[in-house]
């Protein structure tokens, strides 16, 4: 394949796949900035291997690169939750208390889920995201992570149990 055709193909792929890859990366890292870095790094690797990536399999390839990527350094989790600054405002710019309250509830619920995911051990988090967000079969998750189907099954089950525990603890704290 000529370089120009290859670049055009890759460019089309980046434009269509980046939003979804970013969401997966966000679930994997629990942090917006880390997610962006992860996607950028993974796309760079995908481009280097583009001639070997079979047509139609670019998303799974990049996803595999992402889930197998490890940060070089441990990073502390951030507590800030970015929200759209225009949500909770009426058209005239005034605050809308009902919308603000709904936004606050949504943000708390979403952040609970992200926190719960971030608290999982890395492998459990990968399996949970691939299995329950990417909707992959146990066999495909096993293939992408290079582990057995049995390990996927037990890891997913432990992941779910740990997420339940996290919510139970969060509920206790609220009380």
């Amino acid at each position: 394949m000529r370089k120009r055709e290859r670049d055009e193909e890759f460019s089309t792929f980046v434009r269509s796949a980046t939003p979804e890859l970013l969401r997966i990366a966000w679930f994997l890292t629990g942090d917006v900035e880390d997610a962006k870095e992860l996607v950028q790094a993974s796309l760079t690797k995908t481009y280097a291997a583009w001639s070997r990536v079979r047509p139609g399999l670019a998303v799974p390839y990049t996803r595999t690169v992402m889930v197998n990527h490890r940060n070089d350094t441990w990073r502390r989790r951030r507590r800030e939750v970015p929200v759209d600054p225009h949500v909770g405002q009426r058209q005239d710019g005034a605050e809308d208390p009902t919308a603000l309250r709904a936004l606050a509830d949504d943000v708390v619920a979403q952040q609970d889920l992200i926190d719960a995911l971030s608290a999982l051990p890395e492998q459990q988090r990968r399996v949970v995201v691939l299995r329950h967000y990417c909707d992959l079969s146990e066999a495909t998750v096993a293939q992408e992570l290079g582990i057995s189907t049995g390990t996927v099954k037990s890891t997913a089950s432990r992941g779910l149990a740990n997420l339940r525990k996290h919510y139970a603890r969060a509920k206790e704290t609220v009380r």
Partner: protein
Amino acid sequence: MITDEHDLARSLHAVQSPPGLRLDPDDVLGAVHRADRRRRARTGALTTGSLAAVTVAALWATGSTVGPIGILPAAPWAQACSGIVDGPDGTRIELDRVSYAELPLSGSATGSSVVVAVDRCGGDGARVAYATRDAQGRLGEVEGWNEPGEETLEALREGRTVTPQPNRTPEGEVLIGVIASGATEVQVLSVAGPVDVQRQPLPDTGLDAYVSTEFSDPETETLGMTWRSRAGVEVVWLQVLDTADFDAPGTATEPLIAQDRNGLWRIWFGDEQGVLEGLLGTWLGVEFVEGEGRQVVAYLPSADHRIEVTTPDGGEAVGAEIRYAEPSVAAGRFAWVSAPSGSEISWVDGEGTREELTEPVRPRRDGS
């Protein structure tokens, strides 16, 4: 609340992406192309310099070392990223093109070993990977890898960081990674208690490969690693919710504090390990018997609370030191007290109410 896997899937799909979760495709493509140009320049794939790279490789293969030594690579693995290779069937290690060490595995994995390899990829950054060799001597596919950049590689060599990677064994897990050859006192911080670490040099890298003994379940027990570099005691945390750092001078044995995934604060001090159990709204302390004098680590519910150290008659305790450390998330702070034996260590709240932490009776040297 997550009830079952359908509920989990539904919740994950319903989460709205935060507004900042965006990348401009043009920026992404620009960065990809820049990185690719750098990579190709390093690997000699660009026209400039490619001939020199081929010539040097040929000289190495024949064992000749003619010409200025500066233009020769240090070793075959300095050529490109050809030692740890991605292929259609996964990633594999080419042992003759990497610096590697092989360490035997323990416990339920006894009989097999782990190969840890470093591929210098031509000099700017590296690839580190590991694969297991089974009892029949077959080297499997790469099970874990990372790509430390030049800065991370420098930090690894200087002992400022490590790269622990948990890896499953038939009945547990082990911790695998690389560490500076000059690092000493390497220790896995685990709820399970002391875990041995074996090391072997990775030739010409300034690094050692390491593997821990098998854990029963490190997914919940491996909290970090600590070691001593020239700069002092270092730590890297793995599966923790929060940490607190006293920032003690490099020569001191500093308590290492982390909150495990069950919310318990765990403290390591030298060879001892303690856990703070109870309500974090109250005074919690743990006294270590390590070394001379009293060594106490306490959790104080707020910054208004403090520690005071006095002699039994209320005078100044000479030689006592108090350091405070604030966790990132938890509301209170930690105090680390080093005080002479016989001193009184008290917790004082914002209103001046005092409570003393009684000195434990130490076993006498004859064991009675």
